Every structure is written in structure tokens, then in C-alpha cells.
């Protein structure tokens, strides 16, 4: 499998709140390779640097990756349909996009309905995003990520607001539609059922990196200690 991205001696920092103080370290990684076909579960306690790593990978991959943020980040004033469609803005001309904003085209409507069906939000396409529950918003954000139709998926806690069963189904759908996925997850168990590789972060460092089938229950335990 070819390498998509290689990180070497990577130190990610964020600016300190206090002035005249050095930037704070968010994550230090000596070496990390992401290969095509990887389905990576990114695990670790909150504050371990998962989001930082994801953001960095996203920055490196630029427009090859679709993105599913932790807080759905929808446009509350737009309908669900338009929020999902916004994932495809770069594929179409400005004229098509603006026309679709005023007069939704039936072609896109069919596409998006088909996409929304398995996510259970096809009934909500003409609801404004701010009228949705947290779980519904999250599924709209997932639909928007899917509609970006990129080969790589980067997702930050994509199913945190969904119940276990629904979360698993949707997670499976997400990874099946992308060649490569990197998914930051809180729920380790759920992550291990759909992924084939685990990256564990602890104390701003890479703590664990191995295929799921070689993973010992012990190491997961240590990760969350």
C-alpha cells in the first residue's frame, strides 16, 4: 500500500494565552505514516491531542480529504438539503451553486435523498438546520462529509451524539464510502469494530500504533489510565 502521508519529527503547538510565554506543546510525533486503505481509529483521553493531529493531517492533505467536525458546524439558517449540498460546492460552477440555492435542482435532490436515506434524515431535507436535535445535526454533518466525495475521510467524534447501534451502522457506512479513514473516537470498543488500525495518543505523544488484530486489551487500558 502506498503512503498517503508521512509525519516526521512533528511538533504541533498552540499559542499560549498569556503574552510573552512560549507556545504550548499540543502533540509531538516522531514518526507516523498513513497508508492508503488504512481505517484508523484515533484513540486517547480528551486533551491527548486527537483533534490537533486530525487538524494537522487535514491541513497536509488539503482538498483530498472530506471533513466531519466534532460540533456539526452547520449553517443554522439553511435547510438540511443546502447544508448537505454545500459539501459539493467545489465540484460545480458558481452559477450552478447559486441557482441551486434559490431553486433546488431535482437532480441534486435525488442524489441527496439517496444519500440521506441510510442516515435516517431523508425526511428532514427541508427542515432548517437549527430546528434539528444534536443527533440529527451530527447525521447531517456526516451526510455533508459523504457528499464531498473525497477518497479520504477525516472525522472528529462523528457519532458521539448517536446511540450505539445507530452509531455503528453509520460508522460502517462512513468507512465503506472512503478508501482511507482517520476517525477520532471516544468509544474505543465501537472504533475497534469498524477500523483496522489503532493510533493511541497519550500525554501529547504517540503511545500506540498497531493493527487492530494485534491489539491487546491491556494496551487500551493503559491508554486511558
Amino acid at each position: 500500500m502506498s503512503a498517503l502521508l508521512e509525519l516526521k519529527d512533528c511538533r504541533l503547538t498552540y499559542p499560549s494565552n498569556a503574552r510573552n510565554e512560549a507556545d504550548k506543546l499540543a502533540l509531538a510525533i516522531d514518526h507516523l505514516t498513513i497508508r492508503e486503505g488504512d481505517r484508523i481509529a484515533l484513540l486517547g483521553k480528551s486533551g491527548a491531542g486527537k483533534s490537533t493531529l486530525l487538524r494537522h493531517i487535514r491541513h497536509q492533505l488539503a482538498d483530498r480529504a472530506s471533513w466531519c467536525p466534532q460540533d456539526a458546524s452547520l449553517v443554522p439558517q439553511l435547510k438540511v438539503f443546502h447544508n448537505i449540498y454545500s459539501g459539493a460546492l467545489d465540484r460545480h460552477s458558481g452559477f450552478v451553486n447559486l441557482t441551486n440555492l434559490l431553486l433546488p435542482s431535482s437532480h441534486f435532490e435525488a442524489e441527496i435523498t439517496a444519500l440521506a436515506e441510510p442516515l435516517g434524515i431523508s425526511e428532514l431535507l427541508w427542515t432548517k438546520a437549527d430546528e434539528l436535535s444534536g443527533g440529527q445535526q451530527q447525521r447531517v454533518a456526516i451526510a455533508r462529509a459523504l457528499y464531498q466525495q473525497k477518497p479520504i475521510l477525516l472525522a472528529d467524534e462523528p457519532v458521539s451524539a448517536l446511540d450505539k447501534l445507530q452509531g455503528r451502522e453509520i460508522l460502517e457506512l462512513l468507512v465503506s464510502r472512503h478508501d482511507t479513514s482517520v476517525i477520532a473516537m471516544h468509544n474505543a470498543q465501537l472504533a475497534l469494530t469498524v477500523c483496522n488500525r489503532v493510533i493511541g495518543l497519550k500525554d501529547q505523544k504517540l503511545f500506540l500504533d498497531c493493527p487492530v488484530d494485534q491489539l491487546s486489551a491491556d494496551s487500551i487500558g493503559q491508554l486511558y489510565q
Partner: protein
Amino acid sequence: MHFFKHFLQQRRSLRRLTFYFAAIALVCLAFADIVISTRSPGHELWLMAKGLVTPRIEDSHQWLDAVIYTLTFSLQGVILAAGLGFVLSIFYHLAWVRVLGACLRSVHEVFWALIFIQIFGISTLAGVLAILLPFGGTIAKVYGEQLEESDPSPARALLPGGGTSISHFFYTRLPLAFHAMRNYTAYRMECAIRSSVVLGFIGLPTLGFHLETALRTGDYSSASALLLTLLALVYSLRFWFKAKWLWILVPAAFIARPLSAQWSAANLGQFLWDCVPGPIRQDWPLEKTLRWLLWLGEQIASGVWNTALLAQIVLVLTGIFALLGSTLNSSHFVAGMARSTGDGFLLILRSLPEYLLNFIGLIVLGPSMLPAIIAMTLHNGAIIGHLLGGHSDEIEPAAIPSGPLCRFAYYYVPTLYQRFLAYCFYRWEIIIRETAMLGILGIPTLGFYIDSAFEFLRFDVALILIAVSAGMTLSADYISRKLRHQFLKPDLRPAHGSQIQMAPLTFRNP
């Protein structure tokens, strides 16, 4: 003694800032020309009051014509200004767009009108352009700030840096700010009706034109009818100035009074040629040029001095009136019917253009700075008072109950003081702009010299003086930004300008 030491040592003392502003205003007051020169102001007021309660429309055809002109000027002006402002706001991150916006709005619409009347004659185009340009500059700033303050995360969810294409703008940025932009546009429409009336005073065929005649001739019954018409227009806005009606209203406005002008290339050429400063245009000898420069310098010095003098007095009086007046619209002091009445009073004062109030003041009190001071204090104070009172609803009632006076001094003013200052600073540049403009009515601020330059067809002088007044407005804006940045809480600083923008007119239900 200890108090004074503390007073001087504190770095960001709002108390000291206020003290300096008040002290400057007091010094200004000593230099200001304030007299009551009419023999019986009470009698004139009595006649006006009698006229007010006996409104009469003399010529209904003429009245209707003036109403249509007032509405079409303001509607066409605001819609075009919203378009211009919108386009500018998209590029508001570019420095030259911000400078362009600032320059457009630093010149009062009356001055724009004086210029355009020279080029296009007394015409719809002159009136609409006079509203379009300054309003476009203001709207660009507010829209720009509203867009800047909207949540960037939906845009970043699609592209790491947030997309910059037109499609991304319309899908992920505009919808977030659209509601606030629409509200602000509604408020600008209210301002445009006022401006449109004021343009009548300098000759355009709106309500103001007939209002001026009626007031000059002492026909207070007709004046009253026109005044009530103005209030009715402003009040009725919320019933008809709606997005879903605009599809009909805007074309109707352009059909009812199409944009037209008495325009000729020769005329324009002559005007532009006349705008070239005299010494260069006519190649004057040095000595004559020097005399001209001295004469011009004298006008600038006198105009700037009087404008600053008057504006600083008005700023402080506006503040005092606003603080006191805001209690009329505050749940901390009044409730129910009393509050509706109090707020209604503030809103009526706010609906009356300062030019009109000044004009009435001149008739009652005679020529001096006094009518201008009263007019601007009432108008601006009512605007801030209404907003401040409304905002006070958001703060908790005082923990320790006390009488209204103590509550005002120990709780209400201290809690609201930062926001109050933010409103005043925001209003400062507007007060300077208005002060300069009111010179047209005879006080020797910049407007007085600008008006007489136009009268003698000295367009070069007029333009230089207009540029000076624009410079004054821009410097007030600059100083107020600095002060807001240094003294106020982060959410009231210039970066969050739209939070302290004026909201559209709303009457409170009891």
C-alpha cells in the same frame, strides 16, 4: 486628597475619561455663542402647539406628491445603497474598500446633495445619489462587521481556511449574517426617510420642502400635518417595509419617480473645471493666491473650531440626556403603560431629524448655537436612550433594593456605563458630521461656509471645506476607535461594532 491621587493614578479609569470629556465640554460652553434673541419665545411656542393640534392639509395633491417623492427617494436610495454596501462588504477585508466606505459616509448627505444638485439639477437622480453614497458607505461597514462576526466554523468545515469563492460565501457565510443585515437595512430605511425629508429643506421636492415653507411663513397647522405625516411614514415602516413586498415596492418606486436628471456634458465639464482650486485654474499671481489662501484658512479655522466646540458640548449633553432618558424605557424604573409612553416619547424624538428640530429651534429662540445644541441633544440622546434602556432589561435587578435615585446612581449607571460609552463613542462621528452640516442653518460651523461657497458658485472652496469636514469625521472615528479599544470590554470594542449598531424601530406593547 486620597481620592484625587487615586483618580490620577488609575490607568484605565472611565471616571477620568468622563471627567476629561465633561471638562472639555464646559470649556467649550464658555466659548459658545448661546443667546435667546427672539422677543417672546413662549408666544411662538404657543402658536406652534396650537398648530400641532390643528393639523391641516392645504393642498392634498401637493401633499401626495411630496409623500411619493419622500418615499421613492428613500426607497430607491436605500435599496441601491444596500446593493452597493453589500458588494463592498464582501471585500471588506481589503483596506482600500474600508477607506472608500469611510470616505463615502464621512460626507453628510446634505453636502452630497449640494454637489449633485450642481451637476444634475433639482432631480430624482441628485436626491437618490445623495442618499445612496453615504448610506452605502455606512451599510458596507455594518454588513462587513456583521459578516466578520458570524460563526466561521461552517465555512471551515468545508475547507480548512474557509472557502473564499462566491459559492462558499453564499452557502456558508451570508446565511449566518443575513438576519442581522436585514434588520439593519430596515433601520437604514427609517434613517433614509428622515434624510429624504431633510433634503427637502435644501430644495428637493420631498415633505421637507413644504415643511420649510410652512414653518417659515408661520403656517403651523400645515407644518403639523407634514410632521405627523413624517411620523406616520416612519411608524408604518414595519407594516410594509418587508422583504416579501420589496419585489413590488422597488419596481413601483422606480416607475413612480424614474431616475432622471437635467444633465449635460458641458455642464458637468464646467462643474469639474470649477472644482479645480482658483489659483491653479486662473493662474493667479502669488500675492493674490496668498490672500486667497489666508481667506480660505480663516474659514477652515473658524469652521473647524466652531464644529468641534459645538460637537463636544452636544456629545456630553447627549450622554446626560441619554442616561436620564433611558430610564423611560427601562424595566428597572418603569413598567406597563408608563414604559410604553416613555419609550414612545423617545422614539418620536428619534424620528424627528435634527435639521428639522434645529429649524424649529431657530424660529423659537433666534439665531445662536442654542437651537443646534438642543436639536442634536434631543435626537441623538433619544436614539441612545432608547437602545440603552432596552439593553438594561438584560441586566439583573439590583441585589439591594433602594429608591429610584439611589438605584440609578449606584446600580443602573455603573452597570451600564461601558455600553453607554460605546454608544456615545459610536455616535461621536455622527454628531461631528451633523454639527458640520447644521452650519447651513446659520451657525458658523463648516456647513455655513460650505453653503455660502455653493451660493457664490465657488465649488473649489466648497469641495475643500467638505474634505475638511470629512477629515474631522474620520478623525473622530479614529479617536473613538482608540478610546473604545483602550477603555471598553472586548465585546464593546470596534471589532464588534455591529453589536452596538442601531436596531430598527420597535414600539413596546404594554
